[in-house]
């Protein structure tokens, strides 16, 4: 089997690459490891794209200029980013949507409960799976060959140049190749290796849940890094990681397993003690740090505790909370030491300085004389019924990846490959060294998927001309 461009992966970045390469005139084969029903990787769980825009644009209100987007990224990554690639991503996000629409993606105004990103994020109507479906339909219509259940085990590289990929004993050659096969978050062994053992003797990652696909095993990522010595970027413990309902399934729990009531109550660990300021900032700005916070707690477990006053003020959770008519009863139902729990709650309740509660603003309700402090939305937890939600870290995707440049080339010994490119989670760590801001994963995947597809087609078609002339 021989094609111009081989795309390995089946999510947003892979599809963007395949579509761009096909539009440029290359023959394209896309290999998706998952069966058709599970296609699309983590993209099927996404919901929006963070977009730069200088003026209101269809579903996007006001403006979100390049500089502000960049500052947001700088802040969440703590500087662990590549400004050139970040700005490239940001600029690309301002122009890609017409192309996306041409391939069947529909945008809509923000969902209820997500108005806080009405200015910065364009929502996909129906979410990421609708986007993935649209891209596959468009790809098939344009003549992209798609194979499901086609996991690539290894690739052949000679002098930094892609030669062929091996799928279940079949050797597939191509003039150029795009790697867009995701991070390694679904690989439990690798997570264990990366996170190691903590001072308590626990293997923290054993308690992690994976919010997305089970197919991101990182086979090619490891193969490229270890067997081919590709240049690497990022730390294997860095990931998009949030605190989710501990009852979520091991894989594919997606958005609905989030717990949005943290800032309305307190969070304790298995020792029934608080460990972080629950009211530091708006939840949408803080949810992405709570995965790591919970990962650092004993048993990698936390408990979000609220009272009746919070009900109806946060997005309804997928599983009902543990409900009790008194706080000691709640502690007992959650399996927490009631005495410690009551001390924690009594201390907190006594420390609350309630001003004018407003969960839609950074209000003046705060604590005094308790550590850690709760700096906003601090109200005593005193109104039955009480609810508790057990939390565990939920990994969305890992940031360890292949180092790249503005051509999306894979690099070996700091030299770019002519014909091997990378996009999506496999290189997101170039832009996201740590932290996260909503919708930026899709911005990176779309920008670099399109670049990788274009570059791969360019190389493949030039090669074709060379061959024809030879």
């Amino acid at each position, binding site marked *: 089997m021989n094609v111009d461009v081989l795309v390995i992966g089946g999510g947003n970045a892979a599809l963007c690459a395949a579509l761009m390469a096909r539009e440029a005139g290359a023959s394209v084969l896309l290999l998706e490891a998952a069966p058709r029903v599970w296609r699309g990787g983590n993209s099927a769980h996404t919901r929006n794209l963070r977009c730069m825009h200088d003026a209101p644009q269809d579903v996007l209100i006001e403006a979100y200029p390049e500089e502000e987007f960049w500052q947001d990224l700088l802040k969440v990554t703590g500087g662990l980013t590549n400004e050139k690639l970040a700005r490239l991503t940001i600029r690309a996000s301002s122009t890609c949507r017409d192309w996306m629409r041409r391939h069947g993606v529909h945008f809509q105004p923000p969902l209820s409960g997500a108005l806080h990103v009405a200015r910065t994020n364009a929502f996909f109507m129906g979410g990421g799976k609708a986007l993935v479906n649209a891209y596959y339909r468009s790809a098939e219509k344009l003549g992209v060959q798609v194979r499901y259940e086609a996991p690539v085990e290894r690739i052949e590289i000679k002098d930094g140049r892609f030669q062929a990929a091996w799928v279940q004993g079949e050797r597939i050659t191509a003039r150029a190749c795009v790697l867009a096969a995701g991070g390694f978050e679904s690989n439990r062994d690798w997570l264990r290796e990366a996170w190691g053992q903590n001072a308590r003797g626990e293997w923290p990652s054993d308690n992690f849940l994976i919010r997305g696909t089970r197919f991101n095993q990182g086979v090619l990522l490891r193969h490229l890094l270890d067997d081919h010595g590709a240049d690497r970027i990022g730390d294997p413990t860095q990931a998009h990681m949030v605190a989710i309902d501990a009852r979520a399934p091991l894989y594919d729990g997606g958005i609905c397993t989030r717990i949005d009531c943290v800032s309305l109550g307190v969070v304790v660990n298995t020792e029934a003690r608080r460990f972080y300021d629950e009211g530091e900032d708006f939840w949408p700005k803080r949810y992405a740090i709570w995965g790591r916070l919970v990962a650092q707690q004993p048993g990698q477990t936390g408990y979000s505790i609220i009272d009746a006053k919070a009900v109806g003020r946060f*997005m309804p959770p997928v599983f009902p909370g543990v409900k009790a008519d008194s706080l000691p009863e709640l502690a007992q139902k959650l399996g927490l030491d009631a005495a410690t729990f009551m001390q924690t709650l009594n201390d907190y309740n006594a420390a609350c300085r309630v001003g004018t509660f407003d969960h839609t603003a950074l209000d003046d309700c705060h604590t005094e004389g308790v550590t850690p402090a709760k700096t906003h939305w601090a109200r005593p937890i005193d109104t039955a019924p009480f609810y508790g939600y057990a939390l565990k870290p939920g990994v969305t995707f890992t940031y360890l990846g292949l180092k790249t440049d503005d051509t999306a080339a894979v690099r070996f010994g700091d030299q770019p490959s002519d014909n091997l490119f990378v996009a999506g989670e496999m290189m997101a760590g170039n832009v996201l060294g740590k932290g996260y801001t909503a919708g930026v994963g899709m911005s990176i995947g779309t920008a670099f998927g399109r670049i990788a597809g274009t570059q791969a087609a360019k190389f493949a078609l030039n090669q074709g001309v060379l061959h024809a002339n030879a």
Partner: protein
Amino acid sequence: MQTLEALTRDARALANGAVVLTAPETEVARQLQICNACRYCEGFCAVFPAMTRRLEFGKADIHFLANLCHNCGACLHACQYAPPHEFAVNVPQAMATVRGQTYVDYAWPPALGRLYQRNGLTLSLALAAALALFLLLALAANGTLWGGKSEGGFYALFPHNLLVGLFAPVFLWAVLALGLGVRRFWREVTPATTGQPVSAPAAAEATHDVLRLKYLDGGHGEGCNNADDAFTLARRRAHHLTFYGFLLCFAATSVATVYHYVFGWTAPYDLPSLPKLLGAVGGVSLLLGTAGLFKLNLQRDPQHGDAAQKPMDLGFIALLFLTSASGLALWLGRGTPALAALLAVHLGAVMALFATLPYGKFAHGIFRTAALLRHAVEKRQPNTLALGAD
């Protein structure tokens, strides 16, 4: 097996006067709890925005939402939790199952609600009986089904008063039964949808949504799903042809009635008379629309809707098709010896159609219109929830 424990719990709850959800209702409530935590599908239709106004789903909420659902399939194909995901979310199917149950529950008189459950059989028997009736009547009046005194026109075979005497009670019964059924539905869902009365703007919006079949446009105008994840306007168009075709045929009959009683002009009418014009256009439209709907129904993704209701859907479509086809055949064959047979078949089809209207697929239009009207009322009221992120 439904466990003894669950049955005992339900029995206790019933004894305490609590409202017990049926298994299909419980399934809708379970799925909506997941949907309400996700909300990706809000842009597709009215169901999801209505859902976000609620944190819990009681019986009346579920009945309301189930009838608001148009079974367009968009949310199933877009769903990250659809089977084989362990959450097994299939909203169109769960809603369709409850919808079928509501038709039975709200049927008037209640005893006839079970006609929905074996609706294929109901329609077949009704059709067979109605055909037999008219064929025998024709035979009795004409002596033969082929030729005979057909030159004398329809009324030589079936006196006008006989037809009125047969059809008027059946039609009035259908109107009464559907009216009483939907009244019960309305009374149950009104308190669950703010309880506010219908305003003119709400009525106008609901009328618009019904007449344009707004919620088969996919939210983006490219249509709903049918065979797969691709969008198509075919279903909406075929339904329009069917719906407006039916209305035109009905208008033709109504105008003819006025002609007969007010002006004393008796049938048959020919082109370019108004009844014939309405009937011809309506008949062709109904024929094309039902043919389209039948084909689309067979091509439908098997995950859409409730498989148990397929005979009801197809039976109703087939009966409408037969009505329009026999009507058009009657027009074309009126000067031939086949008139008596054609007339008997057409009248039999129409009779079966009207007799089964309150206990078949037709009810969906009535209940969905009521749900859309309640939705239009509810969405105009302030939302009592204040979710943090907003």
